């Protein structure tokens, strides 16, 4: 059973297509990186996966079923975690928002809900901050709280939109190390520009620029030992990566 499968999906807000003939399958415990230029349709694809945008042509199945509910079953971590920094809210209250609203108690939060939220905080190493005000945390800590909130929705899949865009380098590394640990049990989909880090963690890469090009990086990583993926300065840009992926594919005759 695949977690998510998209077939021949095309989508446009108005006349022009933003996404064309998208095919994508996400299997259990994948670490999928969605990359591509700004305006290439990454966010639109994300909104389709989350059910915010409705599918017009093509099909999308989540756990082999058509998507009917508007409440996504995926855990979502938004891009901008610096919104409402001044908002008087405790970390634990932010995490508790992850629970689905339908089976809530008459008022307040249930004991099991609070326990689950504390568990999620423990998973991201933030339980000691449960009663801190969200604005007092650093960008990286806040991102962890958002991950805890997504975990709190009882999901097997985490979707993160540019998770490291507003965090310092050390914080970014910690976030990705955390994701790597979480990836041992759950599936992770990351939209990111941050190719150098993605390369060290992702098992699959989808390059979206109106169309989607799929790369199975897991197998190709083995070529790295032969020099194809040796990156001495720990940083290179998207273009080089794609050239390399294309190079590799010509040699190994994969059709991307």
């Amino acid at each position, binding site marked *: 059973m695949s977690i998510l499968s998209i077939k021949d999906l095309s989508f446009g807000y108005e006349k022009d297509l933003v996404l064309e003939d998208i095919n994508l399958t996400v299997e259990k415990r994948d670490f999928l990186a969605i990359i591509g230029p700004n305006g290439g349709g990454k966010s639109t694809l994300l909104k389709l996966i989350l059910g915010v945008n409705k599918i017009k042509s093509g099909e999308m199945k989540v756990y082999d079923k058509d998507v009917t509910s508007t*409440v996504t079953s995926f855990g*979502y971590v938004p891009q901008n975690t610096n919104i*409402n920094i001044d908002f*008087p*809210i405790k970390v634990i209250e932010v995490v508790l*928002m992850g629970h*689905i609203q339908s089976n809530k108690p008459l008022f*307040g*939060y249930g004991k099991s809900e609070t326990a689950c939220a504390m568990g999620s905080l423990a998973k991201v190493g933030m339980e000691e901050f449960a009663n801190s005000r969200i604005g007092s945390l650093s960008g990286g800590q806040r991102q962890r709280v958002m991950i805890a*909130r997504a975990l709190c929705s009882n999901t097997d899949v985490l979707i993160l939109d540019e998770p490291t865009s507003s965090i310092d380098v050390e914080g970014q590394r910690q976030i990705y190390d955390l994701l790597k640990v979480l990836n041992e049990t759950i599936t992770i989909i990351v939209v990111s520009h941050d190719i150098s880090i993605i390369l060290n963690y992702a098992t699959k890469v989808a390059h979206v620029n109106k169309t989607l090009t799929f790369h199975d990086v897991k197998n190709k990583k083995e070529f790295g030992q032969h020099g194809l993926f040796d990156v001495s300065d720990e940083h290179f840009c998207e273009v080089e990566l794609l050239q390399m992926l294309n190079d590799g594919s010509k040699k190994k005759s994969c059709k991307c």
Partner: protein
Amino acid sequence: MLDALNYEFIQNAIIAGLLVSFASGIIGSLIVVNRMVFLAGGIAHTSYGGIGVAVYFGFPIFLGASLFAVSAALLMAYITLNERNRIDTFIGLIWAVGMAIGIILIDLTPGYNVDLMSYLFGSILAVNNEDIYVMAGLLAVIIFVIVFWYREILAVSYDSEYASLRGINVKLFYTIILVLSALTVVVAIKVVGLILVIALLTIPIYIAEKLSDSLGSMMFASGILSSIFTLLGLWLSYNYDLTSGASIIMVSALSLGLFLLGNKLVKYTY
């Protein structure tokens, strides 16, 4: 001074001040964290149109003001939720048209000589028993809504995008917040008047936000602060024969100034 407490109008003023303080403390907190201050200002001024309509057609002023304020709130909710681009233009427009309707209808009312100033700047000393029942009723409704839908309102206020992904009807709660704001504005007009109401909905709330670590405690702290400012303002107004609404706002503003100064000093010393 204590003799004053024997007068019924003073007792009424104190009760009304406390009720309105807690209503505006709770709703003001929601207005501030949702960045709706300009919307609340628009609603307050639009309600003047309702006062004009009520005077012209001869029905209770409270009813007229409520009708206009709630209609303005619904219209603004619709605009902010659907017409994102020119929100401020539309709100400014509703604001001015509401006031214009009020002024023209009062012009047209034959032999009209009610003190306009009391609606613009409040008349807490003229609060009667019915006013108090209305205020108490509204506060009860507000507390009920907050207690039962606290987590939804918190989620919508903090992160509406995520709230909608979790199945919360963001538009519905946004509209509820605006309608409750409209009703709160109408009862607060009695205390501080429609021009000054925006200060009551922001000054105590701003101080409370800095002192609180959750939305609930911010609402409570706002209510307490607002009560203190209102009672102090009332006392000044009674002793020195000043306009009550303006006295309440000046007490609040001075307190805010002292609070900010104190904050700066604390930062300097550490």
